[in-house]
């Protein structure tokens, strides 16, 4: 087991990777207008966190992080369910999933 660990890439790589993924997610949220894609980008952000947690967990030899990932996955699922439900409702009322349409409330 010991060799396996030494052969693995340094932890920072995971950190950079997940940060990168997270940033992609953020950029996606910022740049895209379609609500579904934004939802997916948020999912991407959550998953990058999962990756980060798992890597931290693995490197520290502490399973807490991996348990946490399960929580995140469950919550993310709930979140997406609610989000999509709301989106359906909006689509039914407005006929669009473009978030720019949602600007009735302002000021």
């Amino acid at each position, binding site marked *: 087991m010991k060799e396996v660990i030494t052969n693995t890439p340094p932890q920072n790589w995971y950190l950079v990777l997940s940060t990168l993924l997270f940033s992609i997610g*953020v950029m996606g949220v*910022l740049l895209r207008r379609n609500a579904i894609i934004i939802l997916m980008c948020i999912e991407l952000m959550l998953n990058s966190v999962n990756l980060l947690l798992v890597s931290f967990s693995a490197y520290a030899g502490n399973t807490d992080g991996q348990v946490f990932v399960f929580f995140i996955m469950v919550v993310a699922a709930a979140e997406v369910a609610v989000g999509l439900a709301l989106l359906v409702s909006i689509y039914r009322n407005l006929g669009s999933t473009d*978030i720019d349409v*949602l*600007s009735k*409330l*302002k*000021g």
Partner: protein
Amino acid sequence: MEQFIQPINLIGPSLLVPLLPLLGFILLTFFGKQLKTFGPWIASLLVLGSFVLSVYIFSSLGNENNLDYDLFTWLRWGDVSLNFGILIDPLSLIMLLVVTGIGFLIHLYSIGYMHHDEGFVRFFAYLNLFIFFMLLLVMGNSYLVMFIGWEGVGLCSYLLIGFWFTNDAYNDAAKKAFIMNRIGDLGFLLGMFLMLFYLGGLDYATVLGSASSMEKGAPILVAITLLMFVGAMGKSAQIPLYTWLPDAMAGPTPVSALIHAATMVTAGIYMIVRSNILYSLAPFTLEIVMWVGVATSLFAAIIGIKQNDIKKVLAYSTVSQLGLMFAALGLGAYTSGMFHVVTHAFFKALLFLGAGSVIHAMGGEQDMRRMGGLWKYIRLTAITFLIGTLAISGIFPFAGFFSKDEILAAAFHHKIVWVLLSVSSMITAFYMFRLFFLTFFTTFRGTEEEKHHLHESPWTMTLPLAVLALFAIGAGFLGMPSVMHMPHWFNGFLAPVVETSKTILGESHHVDHSTEIMLMLVATALAISSIVIAYVFYISKKSIPESDEETKGFAKWVSNKFYIDELYDRVIVKPVMVLSDIFHVVVDKLIIDLFVNASAWMVGFTGRTLRLVQTGNTGFYIFVMVIAMMVLLLIQLVQ
């Protein structure tokens, strides 16, 4: 300090002297309706009571003793306490007698004069109140109490000038009198502050005591005396604050006689005589007082020539005579000034009451151009009026002769002053006889209706005339010139009051007997020549003053009182009014309020602008949040 002896048993009576008129005022104010008929009589009797008490005090006190006691502490702070107290000394005794005596006569006169007025009772209430305040003024033992009376008589003057309050011109005159007096009062007040600050008190004993230990001409004394003199200018109608007095003739004639001739306006002279030590120690102020007096005397006399309203003439003559008195004070002849106050009180009251009687007979007409030939209709009035006129002109042996002569004698060492005062009294004689001739001689110039109405006044009016006429003849003998080898009772009586001043000023320039006789002769000659000129003008030539439109040139200036009122209006009144509007509209509403409102507007504007950030666009929101997040991370790094 001299030792004051306290004749305790006189405290009661002396308190009653001012309280009786106050009682009268209260009674008449609150029970005026019930006392419609008796009220005026009660008021008059109360004043008579005061007079009797004054005589009693006078006789028991003499000029040796003073009555000086504090009633209660009025104001106090820290270790300063200002008491409310009463002082009766020769000076106040004389004023007491004059005020209550003449006051009573004028009350009596008013019963007849005001009988038909609907404010009959109210009038007496005011008169009583006036007597109260005037008595307070002369009886106080401190400048503060004097100030109470000082302002109080101003109030009564306001009330009585504007007695016929439905007439707005009268109201204006009343307001003017009050405000002009207030200007003087500010001077008085500041003078009191200086006294309190530097001399350690306001009662005469303290002030005069600590002043006499100061060196002559000390700046602080000059300042105090000058400020007090400003007060006197207001009250006694001296240049430049004299313009209210002629206007004050709007009041009923008895008021003009009592307040605006005999008593209130002499308060300034009383005040200076009362503080003679201060003034003697401030020669500079005395100089000013003298010149203001001389200027006023002459100036008012000149204006008097061209007045056609019988009361206006008397008013300017009052201003002129007051100027004469101030000139006397300025010369250091305090007792002479005071002597003239007394004689003037008698003959000027007489003249005013006589004028009142004339107006009464004419049914309210005051313009001399519409009178004439009244001698035969109202004989008694005419005779007493003649006595008054002779007295004011300074003809021997009438009262005015003695007092005026004393002043001129005192002025003799100061040649210019003497010349100017002589001219002034000559003019006085002229316009007084102009008045007399125009009113009582030649033919009647009024309407038929007025002619029909002419009648002699009731006894309540003529009795005071007669009594006053007696005094106008006799009062002069109280102060016989030394040349007549008779005791000068008046000077002797007042001697304790001016004792200290005498030593400060040094022995005055004594005029020897031959010069004195010469001066008398000159004065009499001047007066008589004026009378002759007046006679020539108004009886021989029967000329009557032209109507106002015809007056031209210098005469027009004179008859319009040198446009002084207009000048004040332009220079002071109008600018203050404009300033008031500027302050209100520009400074208050525009500048100050703008700051307040602008800051509110700024806040609101920022709020409205910030609202634009809240676009409603989720993408934008998230974008801002991310940026802010970055900023937070940066801040965290920096720290």
